[in-house]
């Protein structure tokens, strides 16, 4: 892999260069909540305070609310318009857990039909990763096959080595970005070694672990254990915050609004935590809370592996950090009994 570096004090200039051709998106404290937002072409203080965003970067491709079509009622019938969004963007500072999450949900939005709105933003976006040097206590990415300091899910990977960032080129798109700037320098052997040390130190900082071995089979064998799921779900208040903040939760709702003759069809995040999510006029397959909690756990760790061969949890820890009742997915997984089918034969 080709590796380069840049001095930290040149980062602002680098982002400014890119910001002329791309929309540069960086971690920003919007209304007190850290999320990926269009850069103001100036402030790089996030390099000091940023650990991870509260709102996962999936929001850059699947916004909390977006217009799908707008329509107008005319004499001759309805006229429909689709918002065009083809601008190129760079997300700078994405963490390896969240970059993996994008790779995971890419598969959903490309399955059978391309999702027009997700795909048009995704194909015009480059992901620039930033090694995690200060993970939260609730982070457990190393248990989810994610390395906090390495990523193959990004175009460029930045690692802090003190006064400089070492930059790994992972794609031709990333390489082209580096070619736009004359502030990119060659690395020395010492730089590469220093980056290795920093990366190893990052991994060391991840203390929280969860054993996901046989998780698919373990969930399968306790799927119908209602008592277990009622215990697991007992303190959940179905607020849905875990799903809204989860980097791999992608469920959405579609709704219309119309005032006089002008209207729009929106989609917005929805959540399997909500009773209304599956409610039909005559019945509701997930009326009970334990079924909804089971759905969330099993979707990540059982259904996803069956359908796509990968756990849909990247260990970012948001659902633990931000849960109002301290529900902890790692405790749930650890408390599951062993896979019965493995012992019965």
């Amino acid at each position, binding site marked *: 892999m080709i590796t380069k570096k840049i001095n930290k004090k040149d980062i602002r200039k680098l982002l400014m260069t890119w910001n002329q051709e791309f929309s540069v998106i960086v971690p920003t404290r919007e209304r007190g909540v850290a999320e990926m937002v269009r850069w103001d072409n100036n402030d790089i203080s996030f390099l000091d305070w940023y650990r991870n965003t509260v709102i996962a970067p999936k929001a850059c491709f699947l916004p909390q609310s977006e217009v799908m079509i707008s329509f107008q009622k005319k004499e001759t019938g309805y006229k429909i318009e689709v918002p065009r969004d083809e601008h190129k963007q760079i997300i700078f500072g994405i963490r390896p857990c969240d970059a993996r999450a994008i790779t995971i949900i890419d598969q959903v939005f490309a399955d059978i039909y391309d999702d027009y709105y997700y795909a048009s933003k995704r194909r015009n976006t480059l992901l620039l990763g930033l090694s995690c040097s200060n993970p939260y206590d609730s982070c457990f990415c190393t248990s989810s096959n994610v390395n906090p300091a390495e990523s193959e899910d990004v175009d460029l990977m930045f690692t802090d080595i003190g006064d400089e960032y070492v930059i790994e080129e992972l794609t031709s798109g990333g390489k082209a970005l580096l070619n736009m700037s004359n502030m990119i320098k060659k690395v020395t052997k010492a730089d590469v070694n220093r980056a290795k040390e920093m990366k190893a130190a990052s991994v060391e900082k991840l203390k929280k672990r969860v054993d996901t071995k046989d998780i698919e089979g373990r969930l399968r064998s306790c799927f119908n254990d209602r008592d277990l799921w009622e215990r697991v779900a007992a303190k959940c208040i179905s607020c849905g915050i875990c799903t809204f903040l989860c980097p791999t939760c992608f469920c959405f709702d579609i709704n219309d609004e119309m005032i006089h003759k002008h209207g729009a069809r929106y989609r917005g995040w929805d959540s399997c935590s909500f009773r209304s999510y*599956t409610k039909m006029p005559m019945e509701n397959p997930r009326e009970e809370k334990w079924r909804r909690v089971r759905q969330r756990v099993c979707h990540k760790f059982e259904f996803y592996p*069956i359908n796509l061969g990968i756990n849909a949890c990247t260990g970012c820890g948001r659902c633990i950090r931000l849960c109002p009742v301290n529900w902890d997915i790692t405790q749930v997984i650890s408390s599951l009994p062993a896979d019965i089918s493995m012992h019965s034969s």
Partner: protein
Amino acid sequence: MTITQIKQNKKGLALDGNVYLPRIMVIDRIIEETPNVRTIHFHFKDTKLNKEFTFDSGQFAELSIFGVGEATFCISSSPTRKDHLECGINRVGLVTNALHRLGVGAEIGFRGPYGNHFPLDLMQDKNLVFIGGGIGLAPLRSLIWNVLDSRNKYAKIDIIYGARSVSDLCFKYDLDTWESDKTLNTVITVDKGDGKWTGKQGFVSEVLQDVAPSCSNTIAVVCGPPVMIRSTFPVLENLGFTPDQVITTLEKRMKCGIGKCGRCNIGNLYVCRDGPVFTYSQIREFISDEY
């Protein structure tokens, strides 16, 4: 016979590569079936699409009223009859109530067709038993007319249809036609008849037991409310049907119709993407009982 998976979906129209973009349809006829169910007939406003559009029996579509929203409906007309499309609308929610307020000439949005379909190819030369309940006749009648339009490709045909009351019987004009068709055995029942009802009384599952169609070289197709489906499976098993010989179509709350919005899953399967048509043997293998 083994149907491991029913696949080969006809894909939905994607205008400008955008599968969510609805086509405009114009309602050209409305039939009030029951106090709560109406059938709307509609065609593409862009008339050349009326010829281009194809679908298979069992597939569904997202209909929308602009400003109100989208909802999921199976296409209840047969693909063999191409001049228009039909959907049966049961008045239960926001969109269906709004659809009940529309008149002829109104414009609605249409996305589809989505989902898989009934396996017509596997039904050839077989005896067929169609079992329907209430509005569940909507997807079934698409298949029945499809089959009847090539009647000589199939062997004996039984149609068993029931509703809660006489006034809840849908598609009465079809029922009349099928009852007078000597190549079919059509049995209609209501849970409880009114004074004038001379036909059978009782649940569909009970009438099925009385009719007792032979399971030999036969496929049964069951469409109706979940309670009817669940009570019919054991009766069919008693009659000797194997789970592979029983096909049904499931209904769930849906938004996208294409396996992305998440809500219609039963275990790892999405009803919109992997169904809505399933064999009973597939259903028995479902991870979850949430159907």
